């Protein structure tokens, strides 16, 4: 059985849900910018809490995966790369590219001194 299609499909959904939750963080951050310096420093202190750093890494990986898997879905919609062997190969490719992209963006992010916000 082609179990990898099951895994990639579930992971795509899960990463999507994680990114949906990430929208809450984004809107909270935007509102704090609009709220003035006091509101922003309060939000920044909250968003810099250590447990949230794990969430940022999770969001980063989820973003990379969902982006790449989404592009694959759009390619599938054109009727290309639908053969079982091709789907299997692209699954591995997406996994590897997600890892590479997440590490690259993560290293760029660390520039902020580990404080993503």
């Amino acid at each position: 059985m082609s179990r990898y299609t099951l895994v990639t499909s579930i992971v795509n959904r899960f990463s999507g849900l994680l990114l949906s939750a990430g929208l809450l963080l984004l809107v909270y951050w935007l509102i704090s910018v609009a709220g003035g310096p006091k509101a922003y420093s309060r939000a920044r202190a909250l968003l810099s809490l250590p447990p949230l750093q794990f969430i940022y890494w999770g969001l980063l990986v989820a973003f990379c995966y969902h982006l790449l898997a989404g592009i694959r879905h759009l390619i599938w919609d054109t009727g290309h790369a639908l053969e079982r062997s091709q789907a299997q190969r692209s699954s591995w490719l997406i996994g590897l590219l997600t890892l590479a992209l997440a590490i690259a963006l993560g290293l760029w992010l660390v520039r902020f001194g580990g404080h993503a916000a």
Partner: protein
Amino acid sequence: MNSLRSPLRRVTGLGAAGSEAVHHWWMQRLTSIALVPLSVWFVVSLLSLPGLDRATVVTWMMQSWTVVLLVLLVLVATWHSQLGVRVVIEDYVHTTGTKTLMLVVVTFAHALIALSAVFAILKVAFGSAA
């Protein structure tokens, strides 16, 4: 009367052609395509900022391109998210009451997120943020 759809079909609203399912599928694809450049732009611009102190962020958010793309990103992302979360609920929640309640809450939450974000972006853009 000129419709080829039978009265029963119209009443039940089932079947793919002309139903809401096609619209859902199409919007999911449209928002996906739009989000490829929009989300990449957002992540790259955020990471390109020299820092995340408020002055830097406000300067960035007051640029015209940032305002337009950020509003677009928020609207398209919340729409895409709403479509996706809806499918997950429809697929995994099988109690009609709970399902309906969750769909209502999720839809309202997304509308609230989208409007709050757009309001915040415009407030900063027009320089009315303290």
